[in-house]
């Protein structure tokens, strides 16, 4: 079990601030699955929350305008995950309405009386995807092919620096619970776990006090306090810890009767169902030693980092040397600030020299620290050896495809070997070999 310095304060204690962008760059792909079908063209006027592209197949997701304004361009642009991808660029109207005006408001009674299929289609039309990282379309997870008996709500947030889920749990406890209610109803589970690490006891307290009111149709809900360690929030590990069920290699949580949803996703489900509100904004943590003031912002999807810096919403006290989309363990380092925030962006870190470890890679001393720490029980050092030698087919014998790239091995390696780098290279090579 890996313990990493948390670095979650002071942003942990700041109320989330709202930011409205002047321009948004909205990638079509912000999820796992096929590209949605574009419904707008250049020069179209769009309203806040209007659909821009609709799901094209069973695993896909809608995207929506996150500001009211005019579609300026549809082109290839920087993408934090895919590097380059198709986007819709919208410039906001000068007096664009600040708030999303719900076209429809449903009361609790109304929601209770809705059919599962209606709920799922609302969630689908709202473009809700998993906000924890992978961006798997939520409506797909809510239509499992197998009987599911357990819902796990993931509020672990085990990556250092990130506090967006924590703030959401503090500021919107009831809404999250209402979202959980909807999900539990759709899946008809008989057990709900809300998993929170022990470094977020305030959130635990709030959930518990709300649950005690018995206002929610969640008789079997239980807040589970987990000792914080990394990677607590990894899906398979979390399922195993809570239920002792092992998701088979290459399988999905469905296969062991579980569904895992991030707290942020539950909140978006609530907004979609109660207000017809599409996923147009999310909380993002901005932190790192280069920032004057780390903070959490409620930010519109598609907001470009550069704008936040130019408008001095983010101020640097030192020039950042590394900018990371996501947490420090699994996040992606970017080459400029010209990247949009997307649905799965939980944080952006601006690191300076003092946070960076630039020691050079040396020989593996086979100490086995990577083996001891690997949450998947793999032999990470073997991947490095085999990739270096180009023994691609042997990589399979060591189950390289099971690696979740959590980075624990590279963190503990005393030889400073960038193991994830080698593992990614090995996986890519295998993929290209399989194609030919």
């Amino acid at each position, binding site marked *: 079990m890996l313990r*990493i310095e948390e670095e979650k304060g002071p942003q942990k204690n700041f109320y989330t601030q709202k930011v409205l962008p002047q321009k948004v760059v909205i990638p079509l792909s912000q999820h796992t699955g096929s590209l949605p079908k574009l419904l707008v063209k250049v020069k179209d006027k769009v309203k806040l929350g209007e659909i821009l592209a609709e799901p094209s197949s069973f695993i896909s997701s809608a995207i929506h305008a996150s500001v009211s304004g005019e579609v300026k361009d549809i082109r290839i642009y920087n993408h934090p995950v895919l590097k380059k991808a198709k986007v819709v660029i919208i410039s906001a109207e000068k007096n664009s309405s600040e708030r999303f005006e719900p076209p429809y408001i449903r009361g609790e009674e109304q929601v209770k009386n809705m059919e599962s299929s209606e709920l799922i289609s609302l969630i689908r039309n709202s473009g809700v995807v998993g906000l924890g990282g992978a961006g798997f379309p939520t409506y797909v997870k809510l239509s499992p092919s197998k009987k599911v008996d357990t819902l796990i709500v993931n509020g672990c947030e085990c990556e*250092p620096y990130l506090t967006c889920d924590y703030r959401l749990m503090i500021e919107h406890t009831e809404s999250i619970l209402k979202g959980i209610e909807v999900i539990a109803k759709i899946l008809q589970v008989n057990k709900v776990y809300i998993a929170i690490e022990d470094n977020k006891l305030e959130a635990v307290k709030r959930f518990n006090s709300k649950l005690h009111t018995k206002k929610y149709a969640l008789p079997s809900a239980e807040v589970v306090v987990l000792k914080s360690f990394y990677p607590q929030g990894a899906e*398979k*590990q979390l399922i*195993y810890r809570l239920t002792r069920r*092992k*998701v*088979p*290699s290459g*399988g999905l949580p469905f296969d062991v009767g579980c569904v895992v949803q991030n707290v942020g996703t539950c909140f978006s489900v609530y907004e979609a169902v109660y207000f017809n509100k599409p996923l147009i904004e999310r909380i993002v943590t901005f932190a790192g030693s280069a920032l004057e003031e780390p903070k959490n912002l409620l930010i519109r999807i598609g907001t470009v980092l550069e704008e936040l810096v130019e408008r001095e919403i983010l101020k640097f006290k030192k020039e*950042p*040397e*590394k900018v990371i989309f*996501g947490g*420090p*363990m*699994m*996040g*992606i*380092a970017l*080459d*400029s600030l010209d990247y949009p925030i997307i649905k799965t962006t939980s944080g952006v*870190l601006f*690191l300076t020299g003092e*946070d*960076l*470890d630039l*020691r050079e890679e*040396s*020989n*593996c*001393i*086979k*100490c*086995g620290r990577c*083996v*001891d720490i690997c*949450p*998947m*029980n*793999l*032999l990470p*050092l073997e991947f490095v050896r085999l990739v270096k030698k180009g023994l691609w087919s042997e990589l399979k014998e*060591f*189950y390289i495809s*099971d690696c979740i*790239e959590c*980075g*624990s091995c*590279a*963190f*503990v*390696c*005393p*030889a*400073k070997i*960038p193991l*994830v*780098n080698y593992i*990614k290279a090995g996986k890519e090579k295998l993929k290209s070999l399989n194609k030919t």
Partner: protein
Amino acid sequence: MKLIVEVSPHKKADYGIPWLMKEVLIGLAPVILASIIFFRIRAVFLIISCLLGAVISEEVWMRLRKKPSSLRDYSAVITGILLALVLPPKLPLWVGFLGGVISIILGKQVFGGLGQNIFNPALVGRAFLMAAFPVMLTSWVEPFSLDAVTKATPLALWKFSKEFTPLKDLFLGNVAGSLGETSSLAIILGGGYLIMRKIADWRAPLGMFLGMSILSGIFYLVNPLGGSILFHLFSGGALLGMFFMVTDPVTTPVSKLGRFLFGLFCGFLVIILRKFSGLPEGVMYSILIMNGFTPLINRLTKPRPLGR
């Protein structure tokens, strides 16, 4: 704005190989100190000659191969000191120097340097000297004696004249033996430090402890002349091997179970060699033999991935 782009993770543990090796040096400190207390200036000189042999050959090798100096990782220093600690105090200094050279060149560099070697370099050096200078390597002196009064080791006394050394002497270390092997107390202190600091994993030492205890216990029950469990643990190189050799990361298995099994079989072998071989001691050969089995143990103890 120039930004560094590299693959995650973007945070890493503070420690590195040089730090680990320095910690090992701290763990070795009580052992070195004990050797100086018991064997005085001889210990100092022998440690220095082995150290010089190791460090100089490491540097020369790297320069000849036009590679950056590797002295900063301290591994050559550790090898030199460990070698000295398993040699007899009366050994001529040039033999110690030669041992250091052999340890580094034959024990490590010919395999490709740090992390690549199969056998424990210090033990390779000692095995070489044992073959080349058998008499020198088995001549022992009494502790505290500057004029080098010859004295047999407790294991030799046991094996050849059925004479038992008091446990108290074995524990404190005022018996004949290799520089760093005599004082069980000092080794337990230093080794305990390494385990508490998690520099060394406890599984291999535990395995060796159990292996030796089980087998020597059985033999003792059959015939008390076989030597008690504590006698076997506290004499010869058992404890030094247990804390400083089977915990060597490079030459031992990578999985937890593998490390335990490695230690366990080392323990069995030590007792078997002590009982049935022509030599009184068997720690060095046990560990070298098991080093050879490390790849096999790694293959047999491959952990099962979650969900398979």
